[in-house]
Structures are given as structure tokens and as C-alpha cells.
């Protein structure tokens, strides 16, 4: 067994939360710059130009690129040879979020109860933590601060298997059409296909965690990602919804086997501030 202390986990989560808010990963920035070259609309170019300048300023001044520093989604891959020492892993992660959002001057956007008591918890906890136990002796932590503007525009559909490729593609494109200018385009589209209703939503989130613009390893899905990107960019929504060619920067699909009678599909959207950081302990 390899021991990892809760203190080490807290420190790393704290660091990753702050880095995610200030420093947009290069994979997304490259796609934004390519988008500016492709964009034809004046308002689209105006918006992309401001977005790209904002990325540089936030990184240089160590300030959040967006005021919505999100609810903190954390994907954990815990090696089964790891022994966590010093307390609870969940509490260690939440303590890291608490410290990161406080010390990094990030906005605390979490309310204690969704319906009965919408009072701000004051420290952005609890985080939404998904843990997967894997082989090995490493602890991998990936952080996706998720803003509400884009998260609110996601959709799930339990398609019929008979709807097939066309039905799934139409649902994904229709979801982006309905979202329009709300999710702060240009967006990254995360798609989960298969599993059960709950699993396809997690697959969609994992799709957003991928290196932006990377292709699915299976050629059939890679082609579907490309076709979806082209269809979405013909919608005309454009940067910020002001009209233009660049509505999405990338479409990522993740899949899982499913039941003979099911075809679940989830579409989750990320704004252009597609923040994701990760570390392996």
C-alpha cells in the first residue's frame, strides 16, 4: 500500500482550484485563437477578441477569468493500492476547495439547500465529487469548476434505440440550438451516450474533462464528433449568441455499453472559459 495524507490532498485541491480560475488551459486557448481566425461576423470577432484578451489578463494578473468560479466538480481516480491517512478523503477535498476559494478570492456560489433554504454556504463547499477506484497506487484529481450559465443549458434524453444515429445527432444539435446565446458560446459540447440515465450524465462531464479538441479513439465516434461540430457551427449562433460561424470549439463524446432496450444521451455544455486542471499524487 502507498500512503497519501489528507493534508497532501487538501493542499493539491486548493492549488488546483485557484489555478483553474486564473489560468485557462492552453488547449482551449488555442481553439479560441483558431476560432477568431475563422469567424466572419463583426460581433463574433469583437467577442472573441475580448475573450482572448481576458484570458491573458486573468493569467497575468492572477485574477479569475470569469466571476462565476463555479460549483466545483471533482473527478477522482483512486488507485486501489492507495491508503488515505489522516482522515476522510471527502473532507480533505472539501477543505481544499474551502481554502482555494477563500485564499484565491474566488466567488462562493453554493447554496446549502437547492429548494427549501437557498443560503450561501460561504466557502463553495460541498464540491460535487465523483470517485472511481482504479488499479495502481496513484491518486488522480481533476477539477472542473462549472459555471451556471452553461450548466443550466444541458439536457438528457432517453432515446429509443430505433432513433439511431440520426435521432441522437438531432437531439444533440437541438439541445445546442435551444441553449442559444445563454451558455456563453463558443462552447465545448460534452456528450455521454449509453449506460443508464445517471451514467450518461457522468460520461458527458468526463467528455468535458478531455483535452479540448481531442478526437475519440474510435473512428466512428471521431467522425460523429466532427459532423456534429460542423452542424453546430452552421446554426449561426456565434460567439455570445450575436450571430456568427463559431458556436462550438469542440464536440467530445464518451460512451458506455447499455441495455438492449435503451439509448440514453446527455448533452452538457461548457462555456468558452472551459476550465479544467488536474494532478496526480
Amino acid at each position, binding site marked *: 500500500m502507498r500512503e497519501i495524507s489528507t493534508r497532501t490532498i487538501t493542499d493539491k485541491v486548493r492549488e488546483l482550484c485557484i489555478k483553474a480560475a486564473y489560468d485557462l488551459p492552453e488547449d482551449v486557448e488555442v481553439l479560441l485563437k483558431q476560432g477568431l481566425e475563422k469567424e466572419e461576423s463583426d*460581433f463574433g470577432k*469583437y467577442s472573441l477578441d475580448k475573450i482572448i484578451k481576458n484570458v491573458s489578463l486573468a493569467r497575468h494578473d492572477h*485574477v479569475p*477569468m*470569469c466571476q462565476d468560479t463555479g460549483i466545483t466538480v471533482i473527478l477522482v481516480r483512486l488507485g486501489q493500492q492507495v491508503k488515505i491517512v489522516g482522515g476522510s478523503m471527502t473532507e480533505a477535498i472539501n477543505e481544499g476547495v474551502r481554502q482555494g476559494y477563500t485564499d484565491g478570492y*474566488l*466567488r462562493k456560489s453554493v447554496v446549502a439547500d437547492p429548494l427549501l433554504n437557498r443560503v450561501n454556504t460561504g466557502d463553495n463547499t460541498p464540491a460535487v465529487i465523483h470517485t472511481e477506484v482504479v488499479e495502481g497506487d496513484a491518486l488522480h484529481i481533476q477539477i472542473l469548476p462549472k459555471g451556471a*450559465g452553461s450548466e443550466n443549458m444541458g439536457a438528457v434524453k432517453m432515446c429509443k434505440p430505433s432513433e439511431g444515429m440520426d435521432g441522437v445527432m438531432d437531439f444533440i444539435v437541438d439541445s445546442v440550438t435551444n441553449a*442559444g446565446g445563454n451558455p456563453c458560446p463558443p462552447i465545448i459540447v460534452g456528450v455521454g451516450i449509453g449506460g443508464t440515465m445517471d451514467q450518461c450524465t457522468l460520461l458527458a462531464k468526463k467528455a468535458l474533462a478531455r483535452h479540448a479538441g481531442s478526437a475519440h479513439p474510435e473512428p466512428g465516434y471521431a467522425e460523429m464528433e466532427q459532423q456534429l461540430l460542423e452542424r453546430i457551427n452552421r446554426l449561426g449562433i456565434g460567439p455570445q449568441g450575436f450571430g456568427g460561424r463559431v458556436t462550438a470549439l469542440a464536440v467530445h463524446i464518451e460512451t458506455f455499453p447499455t441495455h438492449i432496450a435503451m439509448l440514453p444521451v446527455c448533452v452538457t455544455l461548457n462555456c*468558452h472559459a472551459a476550465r479544467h486542471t488536474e494532478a496526480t499524487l
Partner: protein
Amino acid sequence: MAEQKALTIPLTYDQVKGLRAGDLVTITGTIYTARDAAHKNMTEALSAGEALPMNITDQVIYYAGPTPAKPGRVIGSCGPTTSGRMDAYSPTLLAEGLRGMIGKGPRSPEVIEAMKQHGAVYFAAVGGAAAVISDSITKVDVVAYEELGPEAIRKMEVVDYPCVVAIDSFGNDLYKLGVEKYKQTEPTT
């Protein structure tokens, strides 16, 4: 693109009538931040016959909840939030004399109708460009609902804050016009 028009607050009916969807503007003067919970509080106050925490006649509300200011700074990052969540409350505030709103994303037909009826304008700032936007803000004070934290109403002095007229007082809507212009039909195979 069109030249930028410089606007100052208070925003008058006549100023608003001169604006068209797609105009680039800069805003200088005092504006108020308010988002979901503050809008709920304000409309509840009005229906209870109470006064609003500030006079909104000819004023502009900015849908925003900033990050905390770092030491030595006036404010943290302060970009616009999604305006659609305020659609349920906006017609009530427009009837009270609110002249302008700043946010991001489309508005409902009910809000656009109220804007036409009362002579109001909706500006869009670039969502997610929050660090750049903060450079236009020179002074900030919480004026109401401090307990709401990032959702408190803040009075802000802004200088040359850049926005786009997204929906004008005649109902012209850049979110519809722009998308129609660039929408392409599916290629036939």
C-alpha cells in the same frame, strides 16, 4: 462595425430612443448590480407596497455577482450573468422606471414587450470576459441585501464600460437578427 456611442447615467427616454440593436456603446456613471435573489427581494418589496432600496428611475441594473476584491483592488472579476433568469422580474422593474439592463444572453418576449412599452434598452457585455470588464469599474459600495454575499446590490461607478445594444426599445433583437444572418442550411447529400 459602428462607432461607439458614449452614454452617461441617468439614461433618459430620449437617449434610449436613439439606440438601435447592434450599436456599440460605452457607459459612464453609477449603475447597480442585482441578480436572482436581489430581484426576488425587490419585486417582493414592491408587491408588499414597500420602497425599493434605491430609486431606479432612469437607472441601469447590471446582472452581476463579482468575485471578492483582492487587497488593493476596487473589485474582483465582474462580468455579466445570464439575463434570462431575471426575465420573471424585469417587467415589474421596467414599470417602475428602470431604463436599462446589462447582462448576457437572450430575453423573453414578455421582457421585450415591457421594454417597448416603457422605453427601455438591454445591453450585452461579453460573458466570461470578467477580468477585462473589471478595469472599467472605479468604485463599489454594497447598498442593500448585504446578507446575500455575491448577490447583494452594489452601487458601482463605471467609466467607459463597453457594451453592445442587444435589444433596443423598438424590439429589435441582435440575438435573432445576428443568428438569422449567419444560419446556414444543411448541405443536401
